């Protein structure tokens, strides 16, 4: 198919889609005047029922916990798929030779980047833990905090060098971490089934008022489980792509040497 034909078909499809979209939007309430019955009900009820202050996290991990389990499993499965895809075609015999490793271990990047990397690791970990554990109180939660924790890993990468990370082998021990987090949320949901007869039933006492970090029953535990899973998943993703880049880089260098 010629590119021009492709664009013509695309434009026609986009125009059709836009028509449907305008028709759909015309049926929506005016911007800013939405009154959602379910949303309003939850806003009135959640603080009394769960002793939390963040309505979004309470919906995500309690009222619609089932959706979150599905979402978390999507994350889990796609990270497994990425790992499989990237490892499948990576030949084991392409292990880094000692010379390449030595060349690789030369510090890269500027001193300023490395110093900043070292300085940010601790702060980033602290921020990540704060966001994970305060999900039911303030904006944040397991998903956001897990990504911040994984960013600490990227700070280590910026601070040190590739060989240090390979020695740490995050690609190996992040798989169990990710799986443990995913299993944790599923087990908490199952606990609700055993204790209260409903999957994702919030079976723990809602905790003190005004809210503290143990308020919300199972919500803080759900957040921790998801935080562990997202931290494992994101670190694994970064490690796999960095491995890929590292191998490509070393391979490119040896080709340069031959050429």
């Amino acid at each position: 198919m010629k590119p021009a034909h492709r664009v013509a078909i695309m434009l026609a499809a986009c125009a059709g889609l836009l028509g449907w979209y305008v028709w759909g939007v015309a049926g929506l309430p005016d911007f800013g005047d939405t009154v959602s019955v379910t949303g309003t009900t939850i806003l009135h009820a959640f603080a009394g029922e769960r002793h939390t202050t963040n309505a979004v996290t309470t919906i995500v991990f309690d009222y619609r916990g089932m959706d979150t389990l599905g979402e978390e499993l999507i994350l889990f499965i796609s990270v497994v798929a990425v790992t499989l895809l990237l490892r499948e075609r990576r030949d084991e015999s392409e292990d880094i030779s000692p010379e390449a490793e030595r060349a690789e271990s030369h510090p890269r990047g500027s001193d300023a980047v490395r110093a900043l990397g070292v300085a940010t690791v601790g702060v980033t970990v602290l921020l990540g833990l704060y966001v994970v554990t305060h999900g039911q109180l303030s904006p944040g939660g397991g998903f956001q905090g897990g990504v911040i924790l994984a960013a600490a890993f990227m700070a280590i990468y910026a601070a040190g060098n590739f060989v240090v990370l390979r020695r740490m082998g995050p690609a190996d021990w992040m798989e169990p971490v990710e799986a443990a987090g995913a299993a944790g949320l599923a087990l908490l949901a199952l606990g609700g089934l055993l204790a209260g007869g409903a999957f994702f039933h919030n079976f723990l006492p809602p905790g003190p008022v005004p809210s503290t970090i143990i308020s919300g029953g199972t919500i803080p535990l759900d957040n921790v489980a998801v935080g562990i899973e997202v931290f494992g998943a994101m670190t694994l993703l970064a490690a796999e792509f960095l491995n890929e880049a590292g191998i490509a880089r070393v391979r490119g260098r040896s080709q340069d040497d031959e050429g």
Partner: protein
Amino acid sequence: MSVYPYIVAGWMMVVGLFGIGRSRNLIHMILCLSVVQSSTYVLLLAVGFRRDATAPVFQGIAPWRRAVDPIVQALTLTDVVVEATVVALMLALAVDAHKRFGTLDPQDLRPQRG
């Protein structure tokens, strides 16, 4: 009546789709897809917006304050997570395609065999 957020969402979706159709590079194509996905965040948050309302997080705020719809915000959170995984998976596929065919141009990719 204010419809600008809906226009922005529709525009982002169509522009992203057009970019996917015209793309000559898989990485560019994946970024266009993430623009399409971002349009759904704008749409969801616009649907849930209420005038003179606060965020649905009541820490340090009186609980009777009017707040925007928390349900669409929870949906957007799900949406963001799914987008991140989709992008990661597609980038891995792009790496794979580059290894097999030595190109990132989708129009030069041949059907894969076995």
